[in-house]
């Protein structure tokens, strides 16, 4: 395999700058004459603002300006927009209350933005912020969804009765009820999908700069999608047209979804930069991150599975309450609906599915997509149900899956929940996973553990996800307020090197390497002659950014389309130079050839000719070799796989040790296996984190109890083992030019369910068949104590 072609595990080109301290993250950037912002945040979860006195702060050393919600309101600037409108039962649109960047009337969660202090240094801004005197009238806070939906509960937004944002359904409830009536067995579970904090290690940061001479703004921000921020902030919040606003997202230190959204601080510093006439930098500390980065998950669900006497699934009925927090974050409404309910078929042929979702406002930090976004919740629900049904019916847990799997031969498969799967070989993933995990040898290992006084369990999660988001027409029909295509430009230079401009954004995924590989492969040029540029609205034609495991499937496909145009034009140039008909020109491995002859010319020579058009069909063809393309996917892609966890439990302490984790995934075709494996490893640990330790906890008054890394427990190197991961490339995506499906979220989707199923498998030997996430040693120990009683 030549260096750099598709399928080669080449080392990442971006590594050198990160390893030598030369990465360029937003907080590393400083602009001449820069000031610093500190945001004053609410210490209360729910309170009316009676008075904000900024007079002392204004006189503090170094202070340039203090601005409050009153200033924001007085300027008549907009609130932060929501990018997705969900239509509920009876065609009732969701409630969409205003979301001001700085609040003037009342605060709705701890951390809500009250004022901004701009000073010569960050410490001066922070010191002055302490001098701002705020008088609140505290209101009762609704923290849990149960509290928020009680009769007479305090309202987070006066305009939203009962705190219900929407009440939405998918499927026919009557048809579902009828299936349940004929069932031989019904398995029911009540599940909590615990709230998580994404916690990329780089805190968010934003620098805004206003150039009065050109009436032009520049915003540097920690974003997964700078063009989306330009659109949302420019068009909806500050009324700055696209040509007057440049958004740059340079190196970004992890996102996991939390850096998709348009945040108040971006708008605040951009708005204020014109007022103070100097650049303003804001960087979150970790407390800011906990209080303002959109959080994830937080579902309460009742799920029922109806089976016939042979263990075939007849119907699934799901009722979920999903916490939105205090405001609607950018894509929040779509997560528990179109990225959750539509995945409830899983890998199974369940003929009838009904799902009802209510989205609830509470006095907590807003919730939005976090790695997996709706799909881990769907997978957790299904795979918990399947293993519980196996226990209840006595059908072995791999057998019950086999009986209900959609077969490879049944593809494409139309599910009852709107999606049409294009490809997948679920049984092969299962068989490979069982072999890899030595499933057959588990009984022996359990016996060995029990000899040492320990419990041992093995748990599976088979999953499918909808990625490559998304066909714009479908997304639009479902309420998206944007198209979800991707853009690319491929610029072949006169000397044959190539610059690729992509609307995808990398913040760990290695696009600079992977995209260079696919271009090197497509154009037949050395990989080191290809450079990938991303993250700057002034350099990239357009972009929808990186989330939903879409970069390669959608962004990569846009690059392929642009390369196709380069090759098509190159054929015309080659035909002219080789004195042949265009239809007779073939292109492969960087060479244009007249078919059936030995006449050929390299793409480098063609590029040079395009820019030095002395001998050139100038009447028919423009000079230059620079093409852009937009790619709108035809369908979602459907990565899928089989994850198997094995755990051991210490009965005296309740401590769960993850002994092994085996993952077999189908991501379609793979460009760089090294990078793909890395994505799986990282995803797994976030899923394992949810299962065993991560939990975002609020007090009854809405105070964030887990507001720092001291309190919010996340996996460290010694909490996880090394993993065994493998990929099946036998069922590539059928509708994009690369055959790729996406790999960014898979680990997180399967891991949580697999680990909890393993924990329950171990505890079931003591009669325990339910445990909530996270299965901390305290929780497991308590369950063991109760089982003895």
């Amino acid at each position, binding site marked *: 395999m030549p260096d750099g072609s598709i399928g080669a595990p080449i080392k990442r080109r971006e590594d050198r700058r990160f390893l030598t301290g030369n990465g360029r993250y937003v907080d590393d950037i400083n602009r001449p004459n820069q000031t610093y912002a500190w945001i004053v945040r609410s210490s209360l979860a729910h309170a009316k603002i009676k008075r904000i006195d900024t007079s002392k702060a204004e006189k503090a050393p170094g202070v340039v300006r203090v601005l409050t919600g009153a200033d924001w309101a007085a300027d008549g600037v907009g609130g932060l927009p929501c990018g997705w409108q969900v239509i509920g039962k009876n065609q009732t649109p969701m409630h969409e209350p205003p979301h001001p960047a700085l609040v003037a009337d009342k605060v709705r969660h701890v951390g809500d933005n009250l004022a901004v202090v701009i000073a010569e240094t960050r410490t001066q801004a922070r010191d002055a912020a302490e001098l701002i005197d705020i008088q609140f009238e505290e209101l009762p806070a609704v923290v849990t969804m149960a509290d928020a939906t009680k009769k007479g509960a305090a309202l987070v937004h006066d305009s939203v009765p009962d705190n219900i944002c929407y009440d939405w359904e998918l499927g026919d409830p009557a048809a579902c009820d009828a299936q349940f009536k004929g069932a031989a067995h019904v398995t029911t579970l009540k599940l909590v999908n615990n709230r998580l904090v994404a916690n990329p290690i780089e805190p968010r940061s934003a620098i805004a700069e206003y150039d009065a001479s050109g009436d032009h703004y520049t915003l540097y921000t920690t974003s997964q999608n700078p063009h989306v921020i330009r659109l949302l902030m420019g068009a909806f919040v500050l009324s700055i047209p696209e040509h007057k606003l440049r958004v740059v997202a340079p190196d970004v230190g992890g996102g996991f979804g939390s850096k998709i959204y348009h945040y108040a601080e971006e708008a605040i510093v951009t708005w204020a930069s014109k007022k103070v006439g100097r650049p303003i930098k804001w960087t979150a500390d970790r407390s800011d991150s906990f209080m303002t980065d959109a959080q994830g998950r937080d579902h309460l669900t009742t799920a029922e599975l109806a089976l016939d006497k042979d263990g075939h699934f007849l119907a699934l009925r799901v009722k979920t309450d999903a916490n939105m927090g205090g405001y609607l974050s950018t894509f929040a409404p779509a997560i528990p609906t179109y990225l959750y309910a539509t995945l409830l078929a899983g890998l199974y042929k369940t003929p009838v599915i009904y799902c009802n979702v209510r989205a609830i406002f509470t006095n907590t930090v807003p919730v939005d997509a976090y790695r997996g976004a709706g799909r881990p919740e769907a997978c957790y629900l299904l795979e918990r149900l399947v293993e519980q049904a196996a226990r209840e019916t006595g059908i072995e847990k791999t057998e019950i899956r086999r009986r209900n799997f959609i077969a490879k031969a049944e593809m494409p498969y139309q599910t009852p929940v709107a999606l049409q799967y294009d490809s997948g070989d679920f049984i092969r993933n299962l068989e490979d996973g069982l072999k890899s995990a030595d499933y057959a040898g588990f009984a022996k290992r359990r016996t060995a553990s029990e000899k040492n006084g320990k419990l041992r369990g093995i748990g599976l999660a088979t999953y499918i996800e909808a990625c490559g988001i998304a066909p714009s027409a479908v997304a639009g029909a479902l309420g998206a307020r944007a198209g979800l295509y991707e853009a690319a430009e491929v610029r072949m230079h006169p000397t044959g090197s190539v610059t690729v401009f992509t609307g995808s954004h990398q913040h760990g995924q*290695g696009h600079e390497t992977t995209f260079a590989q696919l271009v090197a492969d497509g154009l037949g040029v050395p990989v080191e002659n290809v450079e990938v540029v991303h993250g700057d609205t002034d350099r990239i034609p357009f972009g929808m950014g990186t989330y939903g495991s879409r970069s390669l499937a959608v962004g990569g496909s846009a690059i392929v389309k642009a390369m196709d145009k380069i090759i098509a034009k190159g054929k015309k140039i080659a035909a002219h130079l080789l004195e042949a008909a265009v239809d007779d020109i073939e292109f492969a491995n960087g060479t244009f050839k007249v078919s059936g002859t030995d006449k050929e010319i390299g793409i480098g020579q063609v590029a040079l000719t395009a820019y030095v058009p002395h001998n050139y069909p100038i009447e028919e063809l423009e000079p230059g070799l620079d093409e852009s393309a937009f790619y709108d996917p035809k369908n979602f892609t459907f990565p899928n796989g089989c994850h198997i966890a094995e755990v051991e439990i210490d009965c005296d302490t309740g401590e769960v040790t993850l002994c092994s984790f085996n993952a077999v995934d189908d991501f379609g075709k793979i460009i760089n296996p090294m990078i793909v494996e890395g994505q799986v490893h990282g995803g797994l640990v976030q899923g394992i984190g949810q299962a065993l330790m991560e939990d975002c906890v609020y007090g009854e008054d809405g105070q964030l109890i887990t507001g720092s890394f001291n309190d919010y427990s996340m996996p460290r190197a010694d909490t996880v083992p090394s993993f065994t991961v493998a990929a099946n490339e036998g069922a590539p995506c059928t509708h994009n030019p690369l055959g790729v499906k996406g790999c960014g979220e898979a680990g997180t989707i399967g891991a949580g369910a697999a680990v909890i199923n393993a924990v329950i498998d171990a505890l079931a030997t003591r009669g325990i068949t339910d445990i909530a996430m996270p299965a901390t040693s305290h929780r497991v120990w308590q369950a063991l104590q109760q089982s003895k009683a």
Partner: protein
Amino acid sequence: MATTTVSMTVNGKKVSADVENRTLLVQYLRESLGLTGTHVGCDTSQCGACTVHVNGKPIKSCTMLARAADGAEVTTIEGLAVGDKLHPMQEAFRENHALQCGFCTPGMVMSAIGIVERNKASLDEKTVRHELEGNFCRCTGYHNIVKAILAAHKTMTA
């Protein structure tokens, strides 16, 4: 705000400045010296992204005042490579895909060198995982970081 003059050697170069007494070492490195390779990821000494070497030992530079490092020899991620030649630990991270977004990486590398230094005679996966627990990585799941440190141990002790 009271200030102190601090002098130290950073990456082999003598530096000196007046800093506010409350200035943290990481602030001094990033803001006064422009050494932005050292990162801040939390405010509670939990994440380790700010790890540098002070007198040859890894410390979290968000937990040390600049004035406490007066007279010290400080090495940051920028001081590891010699010209174009990466330090064996940097090379092992690159070779084993032990980094993704790169933000925790400088602190990881500095901690990792400390692990190898403390365990020259022998090093196994369990020890690496245990001694790495002061550094968070949210991207890699640690798998490849552990691999890289074990590989670097071989080259560094060969």
